[in-house]
């Protein structure tokens, strides 16, 4: 305990120096934690998001990822039936996705309100005041794209809206008028009125994207895409190996891209590998900064005490005890810095998350910085190890200095 008292008081002997070291290491620790959270966070978040839908496989047109392009699966009914007939498959949820325009909405008894007001006209052009919506055509009995927060599932003539539209004032019971944009040549003239039946959280919506869901057949008709699907989500029977089944089905359906969640995460990880590389580089930099900071502070501190170290060794204090005292000093600096740094890291991660949540094309539910206790432990351990390692070098150097020669030098 005497050694702990000595180490703690030595740090307090130079409060400004110790404080600067603590702050420097705390910043490095914060960066390390953020980089650890970023390095694995995106993958973990993506996996968690895909898993939350409750479907283990995704089927999309060959050469694409789900909703990666506007391509669709032809003959979707037959494909669905074939998949459902597979003994390994428990259920199939076909989805058709399309951008449509909402020409405002009406409330019973209140008349027309919202965007698109006073801009109604028939014609293929997009209306200046119309709101662009991402419309999902789903089978309400078999879907994993949204979670109802109130109301009921979409039905013919009915729509479920996302939270964004609800925040803009659209309510259950309102009527939305949807129409296909000009890009759908013949369909451009088509429109339909849908009563809002429910409000839901759409799992894959990008930030600010207004999503709605209507029955698959309604969207197919509106966009003139009969018997097509952008995506099929496949739920496997209990005990099935998703990777193995995905590989088998891919061989059986060469015209389709079939992937398990694990395989999709791998693909996404490859695409986003620069995040991991960035995290690895910056994390390494933060460890180097920690090492240099602690190494410098401890080298200065130990160099100041060469005479005392030699005297302590002369009176019989072992090298191990003296090195331990320096390591405890370094450890104390790093522990305080780690506590501050981890808190700071979580704070900064929260701020960065807010900025990055608007990253284009990614579901807003995706988290770049995912908190996991082991990341916290790794960051703390990294800083502590780097700090102790950095102190070891000057401490060992001081221990190897000849006692008598050092005393000769130090004594007048």
């Amino acid at each position, binding site marked *: *305990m005497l050694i702990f008292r000595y180490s703690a008081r030595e740090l307090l002997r130079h409060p400004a120096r110790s404080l600067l070291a603590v702050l420097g290491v705390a910043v490095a620790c914060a960066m390390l934690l953020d980089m650890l959270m970023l390095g694995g966070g995106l993958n973990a978040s993506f996996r968690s998001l895909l898993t939350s839908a409750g479907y283990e496989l995704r089927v999309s047109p060959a050469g694409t990822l789900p909703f990666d392009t506007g391509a669709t699966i032809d003959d979707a009914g037959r494909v669905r039936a074939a998949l459902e007939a597979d003994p390994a498959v428990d259920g199939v949820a076909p989805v058709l996705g399309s951008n449509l325009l909402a020409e405002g909405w009406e409330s019973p008894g209140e008349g027309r309100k919202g965007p698109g007001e006073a801009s109604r006209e028939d014609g293929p052009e997009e209306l200046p005041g119309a709101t662009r919506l991402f419309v999902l055509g789903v089978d309400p009995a078999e879907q994993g794209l949204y979670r109802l927060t109130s109301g009921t599932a979409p039905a013919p003539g009915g729509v479920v809206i996302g939270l964004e539209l609800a925040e803009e004032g659209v309510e259950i019971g309102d009527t939305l008028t949807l129409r296909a944009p000009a890009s759908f040549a013949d369909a451009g003239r088509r429109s339909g009125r849908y009563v809002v039946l429910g409000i839901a959280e759409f799992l894959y919506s990008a930030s600010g994207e207004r999503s709605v869901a209507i029955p698959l057949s309604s969207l197919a008709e509106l966009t003139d895409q009969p018997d097509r699907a952008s995506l099929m989500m496949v739920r496997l029977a209990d005990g099935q190996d998703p990777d193995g089944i995905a590989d088998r089905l891919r061989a059986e359906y060469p015209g389709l891209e079939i992937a398990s969640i694990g395989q999709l995460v791998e693909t996404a990880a490859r695409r986003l590998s620069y995040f991991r590389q960035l995290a690895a580089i910056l994390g390494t930099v933060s460890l180097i900064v920690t090492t240099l900071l602690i190494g410098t502070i401890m080298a200065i501190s130990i160099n100041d005490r060469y*005479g005392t170290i030699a*005297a302590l060794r*002369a*009176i*019989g204090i072992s090298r191990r005890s003296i090195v331990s005292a320096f390591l405890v000093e370094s450890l104390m600096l790093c522990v305080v810095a780690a506590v501050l740094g981890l808190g700071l890291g979580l704070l900064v991660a929260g701020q960065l998350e807010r900025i990055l949540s608007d990253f284009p094309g990614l579901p807003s539910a995706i988290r770049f910085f995912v908190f996991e206790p082991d990341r916290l432990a790794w960051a703390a351990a990294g800083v502590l190890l780097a700090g102790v390692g950095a102190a070891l070098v000057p401490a060992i150097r001081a221990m190897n200095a000849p006692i008598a020669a050092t005393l000769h030098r130090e*004594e007048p």
Partner: protein
Amino acid sequence: MSENGRVLVEARDVKREYRLKGDLIEAVRGISLEVGPGDFLAIVGPSGSGKSTLLHLLGAVDSPTSGGVFLDGSDVTSMSDPERARFRLEHVGLVFQRFHLLPMLTALENVELPMAEAGLSRRDRLARAEALLARVGLADRMRHRPGEISGGQRQRVAVARALANSPALLLADEPTGELDQTTSAGMLELFQSLNEDGTAIVVATHDLQLAEGAREQLRLVDGRIQA
């Protein structure tokens, strides 16, 4: 120099050479001496005569280039570094000109330090440290840090620290070098008192008053004993 035939420390034809900027320095040139229980020896001589080097050799702080040093019958030159550290801890007390106390520890804690290293319990350490500080006249300064007491008091703390593990031999290198004349006289009295209690003392000093207060003097010139 020994009484009753027992020898605490013996140097047999010890030489100590080292290189300084390429030049070979012969700090100690073949010195033989014995120190027995109850001895109080003052090593005197001009600066650079090898006093401190000889003291370091006698205390197993340094190793001779040739010759042997025997402490209580043990050949310290053949010991490993950890063995010599342990030996010094248990058998030799060292006092330095600049005290070398740990500034952030109290007088009591400084004295406790060698006992903690030797593995004494906190209770035993505290009791002995208090007794030692009282013995050197610092009963009322135990909780003070070195920066809060005078130079003479610091040196007394250093003496108490040197006595922590009850060494038979106390080595002091210019112990009054940083002290005024009055304080130096007090230090001499302390050494004499400790010596009367049975502690063998060897001091390397320029201080004539201290040297004359010792039982014997050894004069070194150019690393050799001058008759």
